[in-house]
């Protein structure tokens, strides 16, 4: 009986296996320029990785003859034992001449792989090897000037908040995340003090770090719980700094329970989708244009090892062909506040308003920017602490 069943099942699966195998057309186009995209999260995460994935699709659309090879969820929790050099070896064997690694977590692995493949061009997103001089000739860095996006996030959050308590759902603690959390705080502070003319003491801006870019059960703190705690503590807006969309999802659930709360997701233009009632808007990355620029340069053979920090196109920060970062206003943002936001963006763009301008102190009271001093790119990139006035762990002492 059992044996018969086994025989029948194996015949069926054999037929399925070989029957369907009339080879899908495998025309390996030799003129194709292949580029590899290594993503830390799922390619459909409505966040960080999806923004990159769609950037890759943008390249395929705008440079004829290019083809993307991608792999997602490349992190030790989802793919134990898999390393970046291993993936790169494989992509290069598949013909990739250009590799994009999209996570800070891949910093060491990308450097190692770039040294192993001097003929292949590498872009490590959010890293600084090209700035510190560690990078070989074939490795460059790219990042968007998201601090502007985060200022807008903080700005809308403070304008909307009724309680003046804002939570920042932080990923892990490093230069990048300190920079972005601080930028959000500066935006919120500006809205609170200069636009609403409210008492600075009444603005509470708290950061909680979960330990990684997204939830890893048993390893990181659970972002869903952290967000719930923010709302339970009286925060009515949570700004997400992580790769995934837990903050807006929780905000929506709380709204269904009758709480008047909002959230600001991160990374991906479409992140508000499905959570319209609570989503104030999303600061997002638009990788496509920068990718196109880099890959075109590599195809022409003149890609340099550069550290690039691409800003928004202030004429239209939501122009998908020119702006590296943008802010998509959400349905929950009131018309009045939207107008204020547009004005804020104009002022930022014209240079009339610069929030990274002294006097600004670090959390421990030490000076970050003297009175009147405007922060250089490097000062903003390498922030050693959170700013004075923010609540939350600042450094790792």
């Amino acid at each position: 009986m059992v044996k018969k069943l086994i025989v029948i099942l194996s015949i069926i699966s054999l037929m399925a296996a070989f029957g369907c195998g009339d080879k899908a057309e495998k025309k390996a186009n030799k003129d194709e320029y292949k580029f590899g995209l290594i993503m830390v999260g799922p390619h459909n995460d409505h966040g960080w990785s999806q923004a990159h994935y769609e950037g890759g699709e943008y390249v395929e659309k705008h440079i004829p003859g290019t083809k993307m090879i991608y792999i997602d969820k490349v992190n030790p929790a989802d793919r134990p034992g898999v390393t970046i050099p291993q993936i790169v070896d494989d992509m290069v064997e598949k013909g990739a001449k250009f590799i994009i690694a999209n996570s800070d977590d891949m910093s060491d692995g990308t450097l190692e792989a770039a040294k192993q493949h001097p003929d292949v061009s590498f872009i490590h997103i959010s890293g600084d090897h090209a700035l510190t001089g560690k990078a070989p000739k074939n490795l460059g860095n790219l990042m968007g000037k998201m601090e502007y996006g985060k200022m807008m996030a903080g700005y809308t959050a403070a304008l909307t908040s009724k309680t003046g308590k804002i939570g920042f759902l932080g990923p892990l603690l490093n230069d990048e995340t300190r920079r972005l959390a601080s930028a959000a705080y500066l935006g919120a502070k500006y809205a609170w003090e200069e636009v609403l003319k409210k008492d600075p003491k009444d603005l509470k801006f708290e950061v909680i770090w979960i330990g990684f870019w997204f939830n890893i059960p048993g390893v990181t703190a659970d972002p869903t719980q952290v967000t719930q705690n923010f709302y339970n503590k009286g925060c009515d807006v949570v700004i997400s700094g992580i790769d995934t969309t837990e903050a807006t999802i929780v905000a929506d659930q709380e709204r269904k329970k009758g709480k008047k709360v909002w959230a600001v997701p991160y990374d991906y233009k479409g992140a508000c989708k499905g959570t319209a009632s609570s989503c104030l808007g999303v600061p997002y990355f638009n990788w496509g244009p920068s990718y196109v620029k880099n890959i075109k340069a590599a195809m022409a053979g003149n890609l340099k090892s550069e550290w690039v920090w691409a800003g928004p196109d202030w004429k239209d920060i939501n122009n998908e062909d020119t702006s590296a970062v943008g802010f998509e206003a959400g349905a929950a943002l009131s018309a009045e506040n939207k107008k204020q936001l547009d004005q804020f963006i104009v002022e930022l763009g014209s240079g009339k308003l610069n929030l990274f301008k002294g006097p600004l102190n670090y959390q421990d009271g030490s000076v970050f920017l003297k009175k009147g001093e405007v922060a250089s790119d490097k000062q903003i990139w390498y922030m050693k602490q959170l700013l004075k006035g923010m609540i939350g762990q600042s450094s790792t002492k």
Partner: protein
Amino acid sequence: MTIIKEENTTISLLKDISLTALFVFIFTTLIITISGAPPFEAYENIIRGAFGSYSKFGQVIKVWIPLTLCSCGLLYTFKINLWNIGIEGQMIMGAVFGMAAFKYIPGTCPAALTILIAFIAGLTGGAIWALFAGFLKTFGGVNEIFAGLGMNFVAQSIILWLIFGPWKREGIASMSGTEQLSEPLWLSTFTKMRISPTAIVLTVASILITAFILKYTKVGLGLKAIGSNMQSAFMYKLKPTSYMLLAMIFAGGFAGLAGTMQVTGVYHRLIPTISSNYGYLALFVVMLANYNVWAAPLVALFFACLNVGSIQLPMVLQIDSSLSGVIQGALVLATLGVQSFKTMKKKRREYNNSNGRV
């Protein structure tokens, strides 16, 4: 387990393997077909992903090394009828101890010596961790499965605490891992295959040593005697307690070695998932190999091929990447299925035999 000696171990082993493979084949083919992808291409890609190039096969060997080391360790504990599920934690502690050596030995020490000390430290760390579970078993009367699981949790907490706390990178708090080791402390590799001759030599030596100890020494005999029949062991004046602890030391030692290997040979740093579940996987390797020291490395190789090859599925066929997990899950289930099927059959045979004889 080892009570009744099968007459034709090789043949029955081959039967087991092919039966498991068949189960997995049927199951995954159905799953892939349902998900709308071509199964044949999926298999082809897995095979190519494992053997398609030097670097790919090098990767297989990289996975094979820790799997085989853990399997070697488990052969001792299975021999004496202990379920050393704590192997995962022992591997983690091996990595922690190895990393500690790398961290605290001054840079003036020659790299080769540092690596050697790290290996010894890792081996010791794993062995100590296994001894805890062993003591709980022998003196505390705690079943080794629970003791082991408990110790795994503790080991996991320790490694998380170290990475997020005392051993974090300068100015950074991330579960991503510790600072990278300086390059001289990486195991040197063949350029094309990227595998380390040191690691291979150590692994092959581990297999040979395990085979020798288990087959030709008094220790091996003692383990086997106690594992087969506790009562008779007492008659021969063997001390089960010391033998159990000894088996745990061996298991933990090999696992610890694997852990250190992950640090210096693969990740070049300490990460939260440094053990990559190889310990748990090794339990199945040894079971599928029918506790045979020569078969275990082969089964480990097969598992390693699957592990490495399945990465091709999301890359080439855009099958949701979790399908590779489904295949591995199916493998594990099929392994269990085959085992229980065998015991069931054996029991029925025994029952029939005893009835027939009376």
